[in-house]
């Protein structure tokens, strides 16, 4: 009887020990919490780059996709003969320098989906603080390019996003869309709408076609969709819920928003 019990205990403990041992022998990767960055007014490019390096390889989670060559473009190494990201970022969008391109790619990644890849990147503004995002921009620029992020780009607030603050951390300091222009097509291009939506002959097919959106939605519904994108989901686009950024209420001026709404409502 006791011999049986001891054998049973040995089998149970042996099995548990085996699984625990194997799990401890494989590479140990912990998911880090993005730590708050405190960057003073005299922060140097080297400090920014070092902070961005840590985020890129740690809490930012960038290496889960970038660098594997299948899910997302390589950033630190060559991508299709164009060099690392610092060397190619300034040439990606005409009229947009490397810094602006990288910032927008991080905060609104659907705006510039590289051909051949799926729009899977999360909005980093939901996860990281503005300080952390600027540090990442500096680090990416340093890979093949020149770091031109300065303290003036970085907002004074220096806490990591706490609960309740993570919705749009870049809101207060985000570059003004289209330099405040109220020309609807300039706003549409500047806000990156055509990254997903088709308007006339421009744009992609990830989101609903806006060419004749006025025939489907009233001005008030269009306004609602811009400010709270997921409250209404167009049929056939259910799987893209959550993709459209929720930051336009903070980034557009009142005049820009109204100009955009009236323009879209008139497209019947």
């Amino acid at each position: 009887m006791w011999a049986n019990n001891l054998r049973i205990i040995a089998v149970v403990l042996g099995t548990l020990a085996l699984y625990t041992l194997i799990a401890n022998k494989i590479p140990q990767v912990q998911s880090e919490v993005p730590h708050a960055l405190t960057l003073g007014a005299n922060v140097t490019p080297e400090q920014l780059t070092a902070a961005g390096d840590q985020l890129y390889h740690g809490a930012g989670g960038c290496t889960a996709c970038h660098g594997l060559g299948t899910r997302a473009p390589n950033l630190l190494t060559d991508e299709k003969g164009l060099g690392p990201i610092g060397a190619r970022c300034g040439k990606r969008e005409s009229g947009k320098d490397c810094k602006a391109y990288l910032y927008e790619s991080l905060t609104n990644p659907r705006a510039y989906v590289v051909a051949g890849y799926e729009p899977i990147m999360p909005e980093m503004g939901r996860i990281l603080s503005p300080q952390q995002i600027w540090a990442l921009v500096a680090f990416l620029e340093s890979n093949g390019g020149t770091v031109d992020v300065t303290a003036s780009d970085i907002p004074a607030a220096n806490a990591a996003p706490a609960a309740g603050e993570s919705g749009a951390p870049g809101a207060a300091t985000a570059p003004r869309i289209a330099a405040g222009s109220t020309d609807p097509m300039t706003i549409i291009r500047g806000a990156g709408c055509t990254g997903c939506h088709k308007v006339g002959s421009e744009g992609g097919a990830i989101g609903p076609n806006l060419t004749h959106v006025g025939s489907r939605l009233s001005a008030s519904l269009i306004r609602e969709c811009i400010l709270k994108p997921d409250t209404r989901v167009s049929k056939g686009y259910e799987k893209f819920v959550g993709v459209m950024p929720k930051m336009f209420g903070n980034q557009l001026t009142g005049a820009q928003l109204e100009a955009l709404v009236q323009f879209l409502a008139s497209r019947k």
Partner: protein
Amino acid sequence: MADGMMVFQAVADTAGAYRDFPLIGSRAAIWIAAEIHLMFAAFVLGVPIFAVVAEGIGIFGKDQRYDRLSKEFTRLLLIAYSATALWGATFTFLLATLYPKFFAYLLSIFAPSVWVYGAIFFFESFTLYLYYYGWDRWKYGRAKIVHWCLGILLNVWGTIVMFIADSWLTYMMTPPRDITPETSPTSIKLWHAILNHTWMPINIHRLIGNIVFGGAIVGAYASYRFLAARTEEERAHYDWMGYVGNFIAMSALIVLPFAGYWLGREIYQYDQSMGITMMGGFMSWLWVIQAFLIAVLFLAGNYYLWVGMGRIPGAERFRPYTKWLLVVLVLGALVWGTPHTMIADSRELAAMGGSHHPLLGALGVMSAKNTAVNLMILSTFLSFLLYRRANIRQVVPWAKTGTRIQAGMFVIAAAIVLFFGIRGYFVEAIVRIGYSVYQVGAVLACIIFVTVIDVLMARGAQSLGAIQWGRMPPRSQYALFILAVTFTWLMGLMGFARSGIRQHWHVWQIMQDMTPYAATPALGYAAIMISTCVLIFLSLVGFIFWLGGLAEKSTFVPSTVEAPHVGQ
């Protein structure tokens, strides 16, 4: 809105938002309480399903052994319910005292469901008392059917309780997208919060998982009693019980990956980055461990069947096939466990010669893994089929044709699995994902049609001799223990995966964990926690089994009919 802002202001101000637990810390305390509560919950939800099915077989198959088997387990449920409630209360008290603001946030959304949960748990407990204590009173005729219906009602209550609790944890993982950090929790509609992306996939996954778990625990109990048996009759009874437990666990296990696939797809649809964190981010190594555990389950389950064929007259004619089944299972397990997309540093990438291993990289992709797991499922099903047919000779005139059709179905299913597995290397990812549906469809169709043909072919079959229940070597019983430990450990591992993909968020991208324990630990630490929980749980289950033995002597009843295989 003002209420919501006040709550979030309070959360942002971490002072007073958390308390720590002595020695082990608040995360470990919550982890242990929640995990052991969940294990007991799976036990008290899985075993009633097992019990009601067994009672039904006893009633409609007129075999008293199933009725007694069912009663024996319902008796253990009485004690297990108390343990479930105790650990549930411990978990709730710890959550309320260690994470008070987060607990208050959840309650402000889910309070009405908590009241319903309590009420239904009350109904469930009293239905269980009626079910158990009414067993001998409502034993015959219509009263027995009413008693059986009480068992079904018990399962209905249990399922509702589980669905309610699932809504809380799935809200933490996948809160509806229109809810933001600024949304006042009091303004969130209860039903809207419940109907989140992963609620129903988790419900279904847990329902099937509980059946697997219940079967495995029944198998372990039976093997313990088998090894301790003093008479041949007792040994025969617990040998049979162990077989039934293993049959149920393995049958439900075959379906479980499909529910897991649905859950994974919903996670990806909700948030790609969450899916990537789970499959290719810091959790990528977890799936290698999972593959190892599932390989152990398949191998131990099949081993038990192959050893069991030694007690079946006529089974020797199938013995030569087992070595080939073993080859398929081992190769399948090796492919399934091959890593593919791993987080690696520059030194590791350089050593590997790229982001993927030049040789093994090709075996680590989903095309190869889906092919491997489907062939493993087919092999396990073939083991069951051989076991079923071991001691009979079919006498229907179309027996040979039927067997050829069955063999053809296996070949066609395997060919479809291989065809789409190979073709998957030459198409885009989005097309490749769709191929898994054809592979799974082929395997399921094969299982269903072959079983139907086999049941029809077995009509009036000539017996080659009764199964010699009890004539099992002790080593086979240790395989059942390994199965139970592995199922329990796997449950802990998958719980870690499900909870861990939230990373440093209490509620994904809405409420951040601000404690010193916010970082999600690596697998090594998680494995120590899981093993600790499994050890505590199994020790308590062992104690419950011992108490059950004290309360009543074995309920062994000699069979009144020749022992059939399950399903015959």
